[in-house]
């Protein structure tokens, strides 16, 4: 099976801070261990990766940057930070999403995009460096979201944070155990999976300039094209498929009539496009 980190289909990046948050998700999604560089641990399967960043915003940001390095140029289509958070105005165990993320130290703000009706309550999440003792009336507190967004947001629109209320008071926070964290995430596993399904449905659209176009692939492998001409080929193929999908010539036809010359192929495709019609 192809390593999900190398999966060029975009995929989903789940991001958690703690091993206890990861364990229920590893079981739920059948993930296997993929990578551990001593700082970042990655699990994955079937186009889904789960990264355990370690606690703290800086560790989260660093882990996200490392994950991007591992993935290369392919950013995940979806990044979902899952984890626990302290919140004074929602009941224990409630799953909620962040509609605003504020870094307490820097003041930087992120506003996740919701091209879908939120499946659960939303609130502002304040990412703090140290646990707080006083809980505000209209926000929640975590320690990683801001760092994750700082890195992930630059490459994808669908970056979200889904948190589970683990404590409503400082005392409850102090009494938290790894076991309890695991139970909380496990109790919201359905909601996490449903949220992923919601996000996944939004990513179903054509990818531009795809080298996976079979005709383009064959032409590129059997003809010489300069880099500029290769790009022109992909653009012409994309336009042809948009305008006249049933009239896209076969690679063999183009190769025969161009005598295998890249420039001739481009001319043939341009002519085909010029002769086509926009049909409504």
């Amino acid at each position: 099976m192809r390593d999900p980190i190398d999966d060029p289909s975009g995929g989903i990046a789940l991001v958690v801070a703690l091993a206890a948050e990861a364990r229920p998700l590893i079981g739920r999604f059948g993930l296997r261990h993929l990578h551990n560089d001593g700082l970042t641990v990655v699990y994955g399967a079937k186009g889904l990766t789960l990264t355990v960043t370690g606690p703290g915003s800086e560790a989260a940001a660093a882990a996200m940057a490392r994950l991007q390095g591992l993935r290369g140029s392919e950013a995940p289509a979806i990044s979902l930070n899952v984890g626990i958070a302290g919140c004074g105005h929602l009941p224990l165990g409630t799953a909620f999403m962040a509609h605003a993320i504020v870094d307490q130290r820097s003041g930087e703000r992120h506003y996740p995009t919701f091209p879908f009706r939120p499946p659960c309550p939303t609130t502002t999440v304040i990412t703090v460096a140290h646990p707080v003792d006083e809980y505000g009336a209209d926000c929640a507190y975590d320690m990683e979201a801001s760092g994750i967004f700082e890195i992930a947001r630059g490459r994808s629109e669908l970056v979200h944070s889904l948190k589970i209320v683990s404590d409503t008071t400082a005392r409850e926070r102090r009494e938290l155990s790894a076991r309890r964290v695991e139970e909380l995430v496990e109790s919201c596993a359905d909601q996490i999976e449903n949220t992923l399904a919601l996000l996944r449905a939004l990513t179903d659209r054509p990818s531009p300039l795809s080298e996976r176009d079979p005709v383009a692939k064959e032409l590129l492998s059997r003809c010489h094209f300069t880099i500029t001409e290769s790009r022109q080929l992909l653009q012409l193929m994309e336009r042809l498929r948009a305008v006249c999908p049933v009239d896209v010539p076969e690679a063999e036809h183009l190769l025969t009539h161009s005598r295998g010359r890249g420039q001739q192929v481009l001319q043939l495709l341009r002519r085909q496009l010029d002769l086509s019609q926009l049909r409504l």
Partner: protein
Amino acid sequence: MFDFIYVEEEVADHPRVARICARFPDAQQIVVERYGEVFNRRAQDFRLQKQRPALILANKHGRRILEAPEGYGIGSSRNFYFSHMLNCLYDCRYCFLQGMYQSAHMVVFVNYEEFKDDIHALIKSEIGSAPAPDATPPHFFTGYDCDSLAMESVTGFASEFLSFFAAHPDALFEFRTKSVAIDRLLATDPIENVVIAYSLTPEAVGKRFEIGAPPLASRLKAMARLQEAGWVVGLRFDPLIYYEGFRDGFRELLEAAFHKLDAGLLHSVCLGPFRLPRDFYKRMRRLYPEESLLAYGLEDSGGVYSYRSDLMLELSEFCSSELMTYIPDNIFFSTFAGTDR
């Protein structure tokens, strides 16, 4: 309609904000420092956001009244536009807004009074600058970055600006719309210096590309009602799309329009080909790689993507000649290159 409303801190207590938010009691209100934090963020996905845009309420600072681009006009040499709103309720696939803006969220600038002050000052300076006897009045276009009427129930734009327009008879004001939300207009005595201009395309084009917009028949019906009520209306056949069968489509469009409307009462009729600045075009292609409208017949000419010359000529000649069988020359305006109107 909106799950989220972002409210600029500065206008959090503005009465207009309170009125708008009261219409959406279930929406989550999020206070932001400046609307640009949300609207101008880099690497946004317009296409995704358009599925469920949020509303942003803000103050418009700086220059609120801008000079209209060259070629944009209906008979005046002094053309301006202002945008009380950014983005549109409708999702027309040819619309330049999706190439211009990072975000599909709708922004409403609630400081209408400052817009009015600026328009008033500009009119005074334009009128007062010793114009030549045959100088045309300044024209103000309100539907450049949005549909002027589609969000009337939220913005109250017409309600709040009509009397202001009436109080400035030395200028002309254009509403540009596809909307049939004309109740406010019908409830108001017609104002001579206000033109309600409708964007119209052949029925097949509307069905295919004007997602969410009222169908052609509904728009024509609304225009007819406005004309009957004494309002001055204009026709905007813009953008003209070149497609297989465009001749029949345009003919049928004109037949339908002039069957419903009194040509003798029209203020102006404009023709304009489909065109996009290069950067907007490229962004739209990336958003909609599968869209045939953006893939067919267009080429870059001086930084603007428009139809190649043979298609352009065909569009221009056919549409102009058909149109001129219905209207006099003096109300015809065209943005085709090489035309002097």
